[in-house]
């Protein structure tokens, strides 16, 4: 039986950093199975989680001074809530893990403490039918587990209510930006080509000069939609995310145009502004999946309104950008 520490070491910190940054996010896993925290007896509580290492770490680091069992089910390295939504943190997976680890041989009671956010994929009554263990829904946050256990495995309203404070929004930003590096590279290759199209067929100097402007505009659009929108989320006007994405990009786009030493041609300026707003609105809309309060029906509702506008803005920006060199000669 592996016994795990309740304090992070250097590897845990480095792993958490690289996961939050992005590069190893999809491969940060622990081996599913049964783990011991402290020196648990047959009476000790069994805490269930997924095999995303950030989730596993959050759980064990909250258990300092507590003797407990951790049952890690295989969620393919995805956190409990997302895995529950996608069906990998499920009734079947829990029943399988209970049997596979022969949990009943180590434990005298028949209770599993499952994270409340796992309930999306788990039916308490079917787990009971499947393996004889009762499911007790624990608090939303692992940090609340010591209090939950002390209160006789019961949670108050605060422990059961999901929140989305500034700190939790900010930690999501690096991954959001990291995931766009590929798109950014692709956009820039195309961007440099279309920036060079000119009356003399292709101008390398224009490709460079205008391409850099387009690059700056794209980065600003992405930062607005994927960093400013998450940070300022509750204060941006509009409930639909594509609308929230408009405001920071209108401000930042105007600031970019005012800050250039040699102002671009007026048509270029309009094109850049439209492009920044389109990118920001699109990225803001994509942030819906990172929040704990957007419903799929609501997201589809807003996409039917936002996506056509974003396409219109992007197409208009591209056409103006292409036409501009021919208008100014």
């Amino acid at each position, binding site marked *: 039986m592996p016994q795990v520490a309740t304090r992070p070491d250097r590897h845990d910190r480095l792993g958490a950093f690289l996961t939050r940054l992005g590069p190893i996010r999809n491969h940060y896993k622990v081996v599913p199975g049964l783990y011991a925290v402290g020196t648990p007896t047959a009476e000790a509580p069994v805490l269930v989680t997924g095999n995303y290492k950030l989730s596993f770490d959050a759980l064990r680091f909250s258990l300092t001074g507590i003797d407990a069992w951790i049952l890690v089910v295989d969620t393919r390295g995805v956190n409990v809530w997302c895995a529950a*939504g996608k069906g990998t943190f499920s009734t079947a997976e829990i029943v399988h893990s209970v049997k596979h680890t022969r949990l009943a041989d180590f434990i005298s009671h028949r209770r599993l403490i499952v994270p409340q956010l796992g*309930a999306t994929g788990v039916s308490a009554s079917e787990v009971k039918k499947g393996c004889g263990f009762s499911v007790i829904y624990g608090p*939303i946050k692992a940090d609340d587990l010591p209090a939950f256990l002390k209160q006789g495995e019961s949670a108050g309203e605060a422990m059961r209510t999901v929140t989305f404070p500034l700190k939790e929004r900010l930690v999501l930003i690096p991954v959001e930006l990291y995931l766009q590096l590929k798109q950014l590279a692709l956009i820039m290759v195309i961007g440099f080509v279309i920036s060079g199209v000119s009356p003399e067929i292709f101008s390398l100097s224009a490709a460079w000069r205008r391409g850099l402007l387009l690059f700056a505009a794209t980065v600003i659009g992405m930062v607005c939609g994927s960093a400013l929108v998450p940070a300022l989320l509750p204060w941006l006007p509009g409930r639909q*995310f594509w609308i929230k994405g408009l405001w920071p990009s209108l401000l930042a786009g105007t600031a970019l145009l005012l800050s250039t030493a040699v102002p671009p041609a007026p048509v270029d300026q309009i094109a850049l502004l439209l492009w920044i707003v389109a990118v920001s609105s699109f990225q803001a809309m994509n942030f819906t999946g990172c929040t704990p*309060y957007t419903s799929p*029906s609501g997201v589809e509702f807003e996409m039917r309104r936002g996506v056509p506008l974003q396409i219109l803005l992007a197409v208009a920006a591209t056409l103006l950008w292409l036409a501009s060199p021919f208008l100014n000669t």
Partner: protein
Amino acid sequence: MKDYRYIPDTATLRLDTETCIGCGLCQTVCPHRIFVVADKKARIEDRDACMECGACARNCPVEAITVTPGVGCAVEIIARWVNGITGRTVMKGCC
């Protein structure tokens, strides 16, 4: 959630009060606290706060709750649209 409100009148959550036995499991699992149980019956207090995670319906022992569950994620929905149009798995979600 008090700090955040999403688009009203879109959630597909429905509760059949006739069937409900008032066990309170929906109230326990809901991360947005939209159910109230009184007189052995659950009641939807705040449907517009529903994010359609489906935890209540999944855990209801008498199937009194219906909701079209899913992940409220634009990337996921774009992937579904693109894959639907092309008929192949061109795009995967991000998590």
